[in-house]
């Protein structure tokens, strides 16, 4: 019936769905969802946000979208588990006059109503490039290990592609690479430990696709009793911030999640009121807005993560990390 579909009528008390893809990265539960909800509350206090996480299962995401539509949402903010499979969600939502805002990952096959993101491929190339630049500066010798994300995760594929675009032409030899099943840090640790046995001190650096696998790589070096080379991360988890402060991890990447989540809320609110916001650019035939993430290293961690209020010193500078914090002036 028409009362359940969006685009017309009053937006007061309307519902909007915020569908996130997985739990492999902690950011969706801890950053994206609460920030989106907060902004929505501010824009429309009577509106309801339906937040769901698909736990890396495209079919489950479809089920979640269907149930959101059944509950009469007027817009869906969708971070697709699988960009191809998400086309079905877009189709069926649009056929029932529900707007779909692609979030974080694009949906190339069927244009959504709007696309707001950082670009995972870009993220891959940024962490890779940052590491390569650092190694060149240090005049490091040897090669690079590449720890990718889950072989069954589309986003991991994008990051992997980006990393290759930085590492392949860098002049450093790619010693070996590994798709980490389920993004499991333990698996990454085990693989890196094996490579340490194999390459010993040939390893100049490790590009890890997220902070968890990066942590695993660091533990492997520590457990082997070998000096830890520069290792990357991604997601700017507090645990990674601690490791960067302690000097164990070289970099991570901070995505301006707050800005993006709030932008998504604003756009969704526009759609819920029946308007069609125009994009800043167009990607995949979709009006789009892209944001640039920041690489975080020991040099800029204070400004990017702490001065901006993304993290609190009290949470991070605990125990043995206090000394490092003081050294970097984080209080």
């Amino acid at each position, binding site marked *: 019936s028409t009362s359940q579909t969006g685009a017309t009528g009053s937006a007061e008390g309307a519902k909007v769905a915020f569908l996130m893809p997985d739990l492999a990265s902690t950011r969706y*539960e801890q950053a994206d969802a609460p920030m989106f909800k907060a902004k929505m509350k501010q824009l429309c206090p009577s509106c309801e946000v339906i937040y769901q996480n698909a736990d890396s299962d495209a079919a489950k995401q479809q089920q979640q979208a*269907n149930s959101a539509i059944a509950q009469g949402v007027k817009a869906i903010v969708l971070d697709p588990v699988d960009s191809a499979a998400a086309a*079905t969600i877009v189709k069926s939502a649009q056929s029932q006059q529900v707007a779909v805002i692609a979030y974080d990952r694009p949906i190339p096959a069927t244009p959504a109503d709007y696309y707001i993101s950082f670009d995972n491929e870009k993220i891959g190339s940024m962490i890779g490039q940052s590491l390569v630049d650092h190694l060149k500066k240090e005049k490091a010798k040897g090669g690079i290990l590449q720890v990718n994300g889950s072989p069954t995760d589309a986003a991991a594929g994008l990051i992997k592609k980006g990393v290759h675009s930085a590492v392949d032409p860098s002049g450093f030899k790619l010693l070996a690479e590994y798709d980490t099943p389920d993004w499991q840090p333990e698996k990454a640790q085990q693989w890196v430990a094996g490579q340490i046995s194999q390459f010993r001190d040939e390893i100049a650096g490790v590009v890890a696709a997220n902070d968890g696998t990066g942590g695993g790589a660091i533990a492997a070096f520590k457990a082997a009793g070998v000096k830890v080379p520069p290792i990357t991360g991604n997601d700017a988890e507090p645990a990674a911030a601690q490791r960067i402060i302690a000097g164990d991890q070289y970099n991570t990447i901070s995505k301006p999640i707050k800005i993006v989540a709030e932008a998504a809320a604003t756009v969704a609110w526009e759609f819920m009121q029946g308007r069609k916001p125009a994009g800043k650019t167009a990607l995949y035939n979709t009006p789009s807005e892209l944001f640039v993430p920041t690489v975080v290293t020991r040099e800029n961690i204070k400004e990017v993560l702490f001065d901006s209020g993304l993290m609190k010193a009290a949470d991070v500078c605990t125990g043995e990390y206090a000394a490092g914090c003081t050294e970097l002036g984080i209080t």
Partner: protein
Amino acid sequence: MTVVQEGRVLGLRGALENARGGDLGVLPVVVGLVVIWTVFQILNPVFLSSRNLVDLTMDSAPVGIMALGIVCVLLVGQIDLSVGSVSGLSAAVLAVLFVTQGLPVLVAILAAMALGALIGYLYAQLFNRFGVPSFVITLAGLLAFLGLQLWVLRGKGAINLPFESGLVNFAQLSFVPPWLSYAFAAVASAGLFVSGYLHARARRDAGLPARGLTGLLVRSGALLLGLGAVVWYLNQARGVGWMFVLFVAMVLVMHYLLARTKWGKSVYAVGGNVEAARRAGINVKTVYTSVFVLCSTFAAVGGILMAARLAAANQSSGTGDVNLNAIAAAVIGGTSLFGGRGTAFGALLGIVVIQSISSGLTLLNLDSSIRFMVTGAVLLLAVIVDSVARRSRTSHGRA
């Protein structure tokens, strides 16, 4: 006339005695289901809306079909851990053949199913020749076919199935026209009556006690009413999906095969006591082969439908909790992990329980951590109801 009356008395008395004896059949699972439905409906009134139930039926079909295969494997006392991988592989093969290679969709479907059958055959050979536990064989299969799936999709990641194709249409948008759905209900109930009547007549002619006419009429009437109500309610939204009809038809066929054919009896016998079955002259290896082939083929069908429903095949197709859901549906539906006990209808009921929990929790809008905890708790509750009833049955001496 006396015969008919005697029959009716037996029918009634039989039912009563069964209830006293604790043989409640599928009743406990149904009770569990009703409890779940009531709770979710109270928590969110969308749950029992026609729309949501339509989605529920459609979501049940693919994994339900896999559960049907699992029931067969469990019945012979074995297990297949690889239905998820096989379904993912068949989705990938389907997509590559159909989309990338441009073959007709039917050819692609048949090829994917043939691959599934071949995998089952391979399992059966390994099991029959070397006596490797099926747990290990299918664990190896789980890994190997996940690898093969990734390899088939290498350099592509995900392949969209065209929305216009009949297959995607079948899984997403094609519903039984209302008149036909009512006709189905009528045919089913009439069929039940006629077959029951013929059977009762044959039994009476042979001097065996049989159900009376009234009992048959009541039973078919109840089915007509029940089915009619369900169909009517679903027709308030999009109606009964053809995919769901396919699933139910497969359940019926499997029920027939298991309950009314020699092959079905062999399956139960092998699961109950494989040595006794062998000594009875049953070709035990053939039974194992048929069951493994069936299970993998059903897994392939499930994978195809899952891909069709998503309109895409990707690297993560069939991973995640597909395996566990399929096995859990079979177990919740009353199939024993030790073989010899279970029914095809169990798979239907089990998957509906699982999908109801999943759908209900989706509607509740919970934090993931809470969602996992509640899923576990609800699953347990649903099965406790069932187990307590079954236990009263065993304490009455029927194992």
